[in-house]
């Protein structure tokens, strides 16, 4: 049962992101500011840090593909970025201490990497003509504020969950 709990929660976050955007007003953090919920990415990174690295990257691939097909209709953007960021996070955590505060900062760093990566990709395929300075102030900053709130609320439950998931794998 415990083995399936985490994938189910990831699926709930995957659908929850879309509902969150629909229900909350678009100018949640001021007009012209776009705050993107990256709850799925945060959960995947928590899994990589506290649970199993292999499953973090694997679920990253799986949910990246699902995200691309269902929400973006361009396959490749999240399919590439989710696992790569999980991989980099894992490499970083080998050098750093695995405690809650450090993990939260690293997850926030991962989310800003994701945002910048998606921005660069969209710039490359001409789906946006936003300038980098505008991107920083109207997208990255509000996104980081929103996700920092989520991370503070979710870090402890996800730590427990990921550790239990890792235990269930070892049994």
């Amino acid at each position: 049962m415990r083995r399936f709990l985490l994938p189910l929660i990831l699926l709930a976050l995957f659908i929850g992101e879309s509902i969150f955007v629909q229900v909350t007003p678009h100018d949640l953090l001021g007009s012209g500011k776009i705050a993107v919920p990256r709850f799925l990415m945060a959960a995947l990174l928590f899994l990589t840090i506290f649970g199993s690295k292999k499953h973090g990257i694997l679920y990253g691939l799986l949910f990246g593909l699902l995200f691309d097909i269902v929400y973006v209709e361009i396959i490749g953007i999240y399919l590439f970025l989710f696992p790569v960021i999980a991989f980099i996070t894992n490499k970083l955590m080998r050098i750093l201490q695995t405690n809650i505060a450090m993990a939260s900062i690293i997850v926030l760093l991962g989310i800003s990497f994701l945002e910048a990566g998606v921005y660069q990709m969209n710039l490359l395929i001409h789906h946006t003509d936003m300038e980098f300075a505008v991107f920083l102030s109207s997208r990255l900053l509000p996104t980081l504020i929103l996700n920092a709130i989520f991370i503070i609320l979710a870090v402890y439950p996800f730590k427990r969950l990921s550790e239990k998931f890792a235990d269930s794998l070892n049994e």
Partner: protein
Amino acid sequence: MPQFFLNKRLIILLVSIIILVALIGFSLKDRENLTWPEQFLKDTTGFIQNAVSSPVNYVAGFFENVEDLQNTYKENKDLKTRLDELARLESEVQRLKKDNTELREILDKKDSLSEFEPKQATVIGRNPDRWHELLIINKGKNAGIEPNMAVITSKGLIGKVKSSNTFTSTVQLLSSMDPTNRISAKIQAGENNFFGLIEGYDKEEGLLLLKRIPYDAKVEKDQNVITSGLGGVFPESLPIGKVVDVVPDEFGLTQTAYVKPGADFYDIGHVMVVKRGALQPELMEMVDEKEEEL
């Protein structure tokens, strides 16, 4: 050099970048329909989203209703002032409608570009990253929804169907920046109509860009912008918005109008997918026979 090829991780990275570029290229191609695994996945997730979104919408609707109640008094006052005007307009519309049908009968002209049949649908999902402004709605091919149909709310045009699966469809909003997202529109200026193309969206101001208006067109503020029906897919006279500002384009050959959209691109719960009454011309029919012989 041999060490370079032995580095397993580097090779994995290179191969995955090649696959990534190939996949992005494949999905950016102008596709009529999605492949069946994509359609299957979209329908399956659509099923879950459908189940989740109805209770969520119910709760969200409750809070909206409470908010509405607070504004009732002011709204009522505004509406009463408009009511007198409405009676006059209504009688005029009826007279014009009757005129129109009679004249059409005389001309023996049956189909019109402005005829359409709307299909109701509910929004069950939205792209969270907001780079590509896409909505997922709960009607698909089995309800008769096809790609490229116009999508409207009660206030005006919001976009078009990008792709349709069996039970769900994806709607691309006017506000999404896609070089292939163009809509033929016209500005109603008294006796004259000025034609142009809706191309692009100014995110900061929240205004649509209506480009390629003739340089000598006298476009003024507050004139209505509607679909022209000349693009071949959309019906005529779906409202889009109002002109806010007109500027000459960079070479001075045409003008660009900034259009304030009538519909809200964010607070969307229910939409109507519009099927055009008039036949869509096939590309083959438009090719002249003589041209074919050549």
